[in-house]
């Protein structure tokens, strides 16, 4: 299993992801420069958090047109596994690989804190190591993390079991008080229809060692490795 993590100008969680895969999980990983227009052989691609291209225009809007993203869209359409975290999620939405959009938090604040998310669908390539309904703790750090989609799309996501994670209380209750940013239906992470592309706002790559307060994020990458 070989991972690739994309480095855009303004990415800042690329090193966290690299460290987690290389040192903690001890799997293969390489950086992929945003201007690369050929993807070497990878089994999974990580689109990291940060502020690609300064988040100018809209978060993820410019990154979407970078040379490497054209390749990643092709990789994803061929069934390659892609996980977009935070800014990476924003890029996946702008690319049309996932439906909906991320708008400003309803609190009008940058939210940076650990949150609880519930594993809604464990029958995916990204969540197989978790228990159904398991509550995970990992940090969020974003201003535009408020997931929005029209009612039709939301109903479709739910019916097709593509809502993978929802914000919840410590006890696993999915309620408005546990929603840190106003996301529709407490959505913290969603999957594409084919099941090979996951986008999520919380940071599993920053929750991979007990010294960081949680190692709940490991399960996502370990699930991918199988």
């Amino acid at each position, binding site marked *: 299993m070989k991972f690739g993590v994309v480095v855009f100008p303004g990415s800042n969680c690329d090193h966290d992801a690299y460290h987690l895969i290389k040192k903690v999980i001890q799997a293969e990983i390489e950086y992929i420069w945003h201007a690369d227009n050929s993807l070497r052989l990878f089994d999974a691609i990580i689109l990291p958090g940060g502020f690609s291209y300064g988040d100018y225009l*809209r978060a993820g809007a*410019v990154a979407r047109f970078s040379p490497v993203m054209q390749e990643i869209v092709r990789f994803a359409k061929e069934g390659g596994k892609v996980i977009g975290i935070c800014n990476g999620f924003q890029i996946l*939405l702008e690319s049309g690989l996932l*439906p909906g959009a991320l708008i400003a938090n309803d609190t*009008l604040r940058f939210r940076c804190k650990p949150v609880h998310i519930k594993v809604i669908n464990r029958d995916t390539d990204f969540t197989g190591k978790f228990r159904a309904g398991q509550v995970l703790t990992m940090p969020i750090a974003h201003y535009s993390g408020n997931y929005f989609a029209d009612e039709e799309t939301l109903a479709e996501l739910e019916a097709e079991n593509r809502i993978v994670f929802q914000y919840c209380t410590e006890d696993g209750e999915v309620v408005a008080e546990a929603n840190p940013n106003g996301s529709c239906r407490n959505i913290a992470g969603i999957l594409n229809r084919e099941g090979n592309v996951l986008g999520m706002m919380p940071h599993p790559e920053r929750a991979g060692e007990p010294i960081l307060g949680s190692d709940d994020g490991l399960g996502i990458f370990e699930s991918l490795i199988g």
Partner: protein
Amino acid sequence: MWIAKVVVTYKPGILDPEGKTIQNALTQLGFEDIENLETGKYFALQFGKKIDKQKAEELTRETCEKILHNPVIQKYSYELIEVKA
């Protein structure tokens, strides 16, 4: 020479946090008659001399559709004005 003046705003019902914040400030300053305030982004696209009005309009729509606006949450409008080179 043609210039397209493009304005991108949020669709109705989408949170416009900047607009809300400015409106609250205006209310505090006594401008109570302003019931709603909407923010947006402005882009001016200047076309080369060889581009006629029809082509300019086509290119404006294409850029708006491709990158300048996100149809999930935003809408756009534009006007084309002719300027002397």
